[in-house]
Protein backbone atom coordinates (compact mmCIF):
# COMPACT_ATOMS: atom_id res chain seq x y z
CA UNK A 1 0.00 0.00 0.00
CA UNK A 2 2.69 2.42 0.94
CA UNK A 3 4.90 1.17 -1.87
CA UNK A 4 2.80 2.99 -4.46
CA UNK A 5 3.37 6.37 -2.87
CA UNK A 6 7.09 5.77 -2.43
CA UNK A 7 7.39 4.73 -6.08
CA UNK A 8 5.53 7.86 -7.11
CA UNK A 9 7.84 10.08 -5.07
CA UNK A 10 11.01 8.60 -6.56
CA UNK A 11 9.54 8.62 -10.07
CA UNK A 12 8.63 12.28 -9.86
CA UNK A 13 12.00 13.17 -8.36
CA UNK A 14 14.11 11.38 -10.95
CA UNK A 15 11.72 12.29 -13.74
CA UNK A 16 12.23 15.98 -12.98
CA UNK A 17 15.99 15.60 -12.59
CA UNK A 18 16.47 13.62 -15.80
CA UNK A 19 14.15 15.98 -17.62
CA UNK A 20 16.34 18.89 -16.61
CA UNK A 21 19.57 17.08 -17.48
CA UNK A 22 18.22 16.20 -20.94
CA UNK A 23 17.20 19.79 -21.54
CA UNK A 24 20.74 20.91 -20.65
CA UNK A 25 22.25 18.35 -23.00
CA UNK A 26 19.86 19.32 -25.80
CA UNK A 27 20.60 23.03 -25.41
CA UNK A 28 24.39 22.55 -25.42
CA UNK A 29 24.25 20.20 -28.41
CA UNK A 30 22.26 22.78 -30.33
CA UNK A 31 24.82 25.45 -29.57
CA UNK A 32 27.96 23.43 -30.28
CA UNK A 33 26.44 22.09 -33.51
CA UNK A 34 25.93 25.62 -34.79
CA UNK A 35 29.61 26.45 -34.57
CA UNK A 36 30.70 23.56 -36.81
Amino acid sequence: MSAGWIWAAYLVTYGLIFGYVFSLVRRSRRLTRRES
Partner: protein
Amino acid sequence: MTKRILPVLAGLALVAALAVALSSPPDVLQGDFVRILYIHVANAWLAFLAFGVTAAASIGWLVRKKPGYDRVAASSAEIGVLFTAVTLFTGMIWGKPIWGTFWDWGDARMASTALMFFVYLGYLALRRATPDRQARARRSAILGVIAVVQVPLVYFSVTLWRTLHQGLTIRPDSVQMEPAMLVALLVNVGAFSLLYLALLTARVRLARLEEAAEAHERAPAGRAVTAPRLETGQ
Protein backbone atom coordinates in the same frame (compact mmCIF):
# COMPACT_ATOMS: atom_id res chain seq x y z
CA MET B 1 37.86 13.72 -19.03
CA THR B 2 37.67 15.83 -15.85
CA LYS B 3 34.35 17.16 -17.14
CA ARG B 4 32.89 13.74 -16.48
CA ILE B 5 34.09 13.12 -12.93
CA LEU B 6 31.51 15.23 -11.11
CA PRO B 7 28.43 13.91 -12.93
CA VAL B 8 29.65 10.31 -12.53
CA LEU B 9 30.31 10.83 -8.84
CA ALA B 10 26.91 12.43 -8.42
CA GLY B 11 25.26 9.54 -10.22
CA LEU B 12 27.00 6.98 -8.02
CA ALA B 13 26.12 8.93 -4.89
CA LEU B 14 22.46 9.03 -5.92
CA VAL B 15 22.44 5.27 -6.43
CA ALA B 16 23.97 4.84 -2.97
CA ALA B 17 21.40 7.23 -1.54
CA LEU B 18 18.59 5.23 -3.10
CA ALA B 19 19.99 1.99 -1.68
CA VAL B 20 20.37 3.46 1.79
CA ALA B 21 16.91 5.03 1.69
CA LEU B 22 15.27 1.75 0.76
CA SER B 23 17.23 -0.37 3.23
CA SER B 24 16.96 1.89 6.26
CA PRO B 25 14.54 0.91 9.07
CA PRO B 26 10.94 2.12 8.86
CA ASP B 27 9.83 4.89 11.22
CA VAL B 28 7.86 4.19 14.41
CA LEU B 29 5.04 6.58 13.50
CA GLN B 30 4.91 6.71 9.73
CA GLY B 31 6.42 3.38 8.70
CA ASP B 32 7.90 3.16 5.22
CA PHE B 33 6.79 6.65 4.25
CA VAL B 34 9.86 8.07 5.91
CA ARG B 35 11.75 6.99 2.77
CA ILE B 36 10.04 9.81 0.91
CA LEU B 37 11.22 12.26 3.52
CA TYR B 38 14.86 11.52 2.77
CA ILE B 39 14.50 13.05 -0.68
CA HIS B 40 12.05 15.71 0.46
CA VAL B 41 14.27 17.08 3.24
CA ALA B 42 17.47 16.78 1.18
CA ASN B 43 15.94 18.70 -1.73
CA ALA B 44 14.51 21.32 0.62
CA TRP B 45 17.95 22.08 2.05
CA LEU B 46 19.48 22.19 -1.41
CA ALA B 47 16.74 24.48 -2.67
CA PHE B 48 17.60 26.94 0.09
CA LEU B 49 21.31 26.50 -0.56
CA ALA B 50 20.82 27.20 -4.26
CA PHE B 51 18.85 30.30 -3.38
CA GLY B 52 21.63 31.39 -1.02
CA VAL B 53 24.19 30.92 -3.77
CA THR B 54 22.08 33.04 -6.13
CA ALA B 55 21.86 35.77 -3.50
CA ALA B 56 25.60 35.68 -2.76
CA ALA B 57 26.53 35.65 -6.46
CA SER B 58 24.14 38.58 -7.03
CA ILE B 59 25.92 40.61 -4.37
CA GLY B 60 29.22 39.49 -5.85
CA TRP B 61 28.20 40.77 -9.27
CA LEU B 62 27.09 44.13 -7.91
CA VAL B 63 30.44 44.54 -6.18
CA ARG B 64 32.78 43.05 -8.81
CA LYS B 65 30.78 43.24 -12.05
CA LYS B 66 32.44 40.05 -13.32
CA PRO B 67 30.15 38.06 -15.68
CA GLY B 68 31.05 34.81 -13.92
CA TYR B 69 29.02 35.90 -10.90
CA ASP B 70 25.98 36.50 -13.05
CA ARG B 71 26.29 33.08 -14.68
CA VAL B 72 26.49 31.37 -11.30
CA ALA B 73 23.55 33.36 -9.92
CA ALA B 74 21.30 32.52 -12.85
CA SER B 75 22.37 28.87 -13.06
CA SER B 76 21.86 28.33 -9.35
CA ALA B 77 18.40 29.89 -9.61
CA GLU B 78 17.40 27.53 -12.40
CA ILE B 79 18.64 24.50 -10.48
CA GLY B 80 16.95 25.87 -7.37
CA VAL B 81 13.64 25.82 -9.25
CA LEU B 82 14.25 22.14 -9.97
CA PHE B 83 14.99 21.28 -6.33
CA THR B 84 12.08 23.39 -5.09
CA ALA B 85 9.73 21.56 -7.46
CA VAL B 86 10.99 18.21 -6.18
CA THR B 87 10.56 19.43 -2.59
CA LEU B 88 6.99 20.51 -3.22
CA PHE B 89 5.98 17.36 -5.11
CA THR B 90 7.57 14.93 -2.64
CA GLY B 91 6.06 16.91 0.23
CA MET B 92 2.61 16.55 -1.30
CA ILE B 93 3.11 12.86 -2.11
CA TRP B 94 4.21 12.30 1.50
CA GLY B 95 1.29 14.31 2.81
CA LYS B 96 -1.51 12.36 1.14
CA PRO B 97 -1.02 9.02 2.92
CA ILE B 98 0.10 10.64 6.17
CA TRP B 99 -2.41 13.48 6.53
CA GLY B 100 -5.04 12.30 4.05
CA THR B 101 -4.57 15.50 2.06
CA PHE B 102 -2.03 16.69 -0.51
CA TRP B 103 -1.81 20.19 0.92
CA ASP B 104 -1.89 21.29 4.56
CA TRP B 105 -1.98 25.03 5.16
CA GLY B 106 -0.74 24.38 8.66
CA ASP B 107 2.68 23.43 7.31
CA ALA B 108 4.61 26.70 7.31
CA ARG B 109 7.62 25.26 5.56
CA MET B 110 5.69 23.97 2.56
CA ALA B 111 3.86 27.28 2.21
CA SER B 112 7.12 29.25 2.44
CA THR B 113 8.78 26.90 -0.04
CA ALA B 114 5.91 27.44 -2.47
CA LEU B 115 6.34 31.21 -2.13
CA MET B 116 10.08 30.89 -2.68
CA PHE B 117 9.26 28.93 -5.83
CA PHE B 118 7.29 31.93 -7.11
CA VAL B 119 10.15 34.26 -6.25
CA TYR B 120 12.56 32.09 -8.28
CA LEU B 121 10.13 32.01 -11.20
CA GLY B 122 9.95 35.81 -11.06
CA TYR B 123 13.73 36.02 -11.10
CA LEU B 124 13.92 33.79 -14.19
CA ALA B 125 11.07 35.71 -15.85
CA LEU B 126 12.93 38.98 -15.32
CA ARG B 127 16.03 37.51 -16.95
CA ARG B 128 14.05 36.25 -19.94
CA ALA B 129 12.47 39.67 -20.36
CA THR B 130 15.79 41.55 -20.51
CA PRO B 131 17.59 41.07 -23.83
CA ASP B 132 20.65 43.18 -23.07
CA ARG B 133 23.23 41.14 -21.20
CA GLN B 134 24.59 43.89 -18.96
CA ALA B 135 21.12 45.11 -18.01
CA ARG B 136 19.99 41.53 -17.41
CA ALA B 137 22.88 40.90 -15.04
CA ARG B 138 22.27 44.14 -13.17
CA ARG B 139 18.51 43.79 -12.82
CA SER B 140 18.60 40.18 -11.68
CA ALA B 141 21.40 40.96 -9.24
CA ILE B 142 19.30 43.75 -7.74
CA LEU B 143 16.28 41.46 -7.53
CA GLY B 144 18.56 38.91 -5.87
CA VAL B 145 19.49 41.47 -3.21
CA ILE B 146 15.89 42.52 -2.63
CA ALA B 147 14.81 38.88 -2.39
CA VAL B 148 17.51 37.93 0.12
CA VAL B 149 16.24 40.72 2.36
CA GLN B 150 12.57 39.85 1.96
CA VAL B 151 12.44 36.06 1.74
CA PRO B 152 13.43 35.43 5.40
CA LEU B 153 10.62 37.79 6.35
CA VAL B 154 8.21 35.87 4.13
CA TYR B 155 9.28 32.63 5.78
CA PHE B 156 8.96 34.17 9.24
CA SER B 157 5.52 35.65 8.62
CA VAL B 158 4.15 32.33 7.36
CA THR B 159 5.59 30.53 10.42
CA LEU B 160 3.99 33.13 12.68
CA TRP B 161 0.67 32.66 10.91
CA ARG B 162 0.88 28.91 11.25
CA THR B 163 1.48 28.97 15.01
CA LEU B 164 -1.88 30.68 15.33
CA HIS B 165 -3.86 28.39 13.07
CA GLN B 166 -2.63 24.97 14.13
CA GLY B 167 -2.40 22.37 11.42
CA LEU B 168 -2.13 18.59 11.51
CA THR B 169 0.22 16.93 13.95
CA ILE B 170 2.87 14.92 12.07
CA ARG B 171 5.22 17.23 10.27
CA PRO B 172 8.35 16.47 8.26
CA ASP B 173 10.45 18.28 10.82
CA SER B 174 8.91 16.53 13.84
CA VAL B 175 10.27 13.09 12.98
CA GLN B 176 12.46 11.49 15.63
CA MET B 177 15.46 10.11 13.80
CA GLU B 178 17.30 7.07 15.07
CA PRO B 179 20.95 6.76 13.96
CA ALA B 180 20.31 4.53 10.93
CA MET B 181 17.70 6.95 9.65
CA LEU B 182 19.99 9.91 10.25
CA VAL B 183 22.66 8.20 8.17
CA ALA B 184 20.16 7.67 5.35
CA LEU B 185 19.21 11.34 5.48
CA LEU B 186 22.81 12.52 5.45
CA VAL B 187 23.72 10.22 2.54
CA ASN B 188 20.79 11.66 0.61
CA VAL B 189 21.81 15.22 1.45
CA GLY B 190 25.37 14.45 0.33
CA ALA B 191 24.21 12.82 -2.90
CA PHE B 192 21.91 15.68 -3.85
CA SER B 193 24.64 18.18 -2.96
CA LEU B 194 26.93 16.47 -5.45
CA LEU B 195 24.09 16.56 -7.96
CA TYR B 196 23.73 20.30 -7.34
CA LEU B 197 27.42 20.86 -7.98
CA ALA B 198 27.36 18.72 -11.13
CA LEU B 199 24.31 20.55 -12.48
CA LEU B 200 25.73 23.94 -11.54
CA THR B 201 29.01 23.41 -13.37
CA ALA B 202 27.15 22.06 -16.41
CA ARG B 203 24.70 24.95 -16.42
CA VAL B 204 27.44 27.58 -16.04
CA ARG B 205 29.28 25.98 -18.94
CA LEU B 206 26.11 26.17 -21.01
CA ALA B 207 25.67 29.81 -20.03
CA ARG B 208 29.14 30.58 -21.33
CA LEU B 209 28.28 28.86 -24.63
CA GLU B 210 25.02 30.82 -24.87
CA GLU B 211 26.77 34.13 -24.29
CA ALA B 212 29.38 33.34 -26.92
CA ALA B 213 26.66 32.43 -29.44
CA GLU B 214 24.74 35.62 -28.61
CA ALA B 215 27.80 37.79 -29.08
CA HIS B 216 28.53 36.09 -32.36
CA GLU B 217 25.00 36.78 -33.62
CA ARG B 218 24.92 40.39 -32.57
CA ALA B 219 28.24 41.68 -33.76
CA PRO B 220 29.34 39.98 -36.96
CA ALA B 221 31.75 42.83 -37.63
CA GLY B 222 32.82 43.02 -34.02
CA ARG B 223 32.99 46.26 -32.03
CA ALA B 224 33.77 48.23 -35.19
CA VAL B 225 30.08 48.67 -35.93
CA THR B 226 28.67 49.46 -32.46
CA ALA B 227 29.06 52.71 -30.58
CA PRO B 228 31.65 52.80 -27.77
CA ARG B 229 30.15 51.72 -24.46
CA LEU B 230 30.60 53.64 -21.23
CA GLU B 231 30.88 50.52 -19.16
CA THR B 232 33.60 47.89 -19.45
CA GLY B 233 32.99 44.17 -19.17
CA GLN B 234 32.52 41.33 -21.55
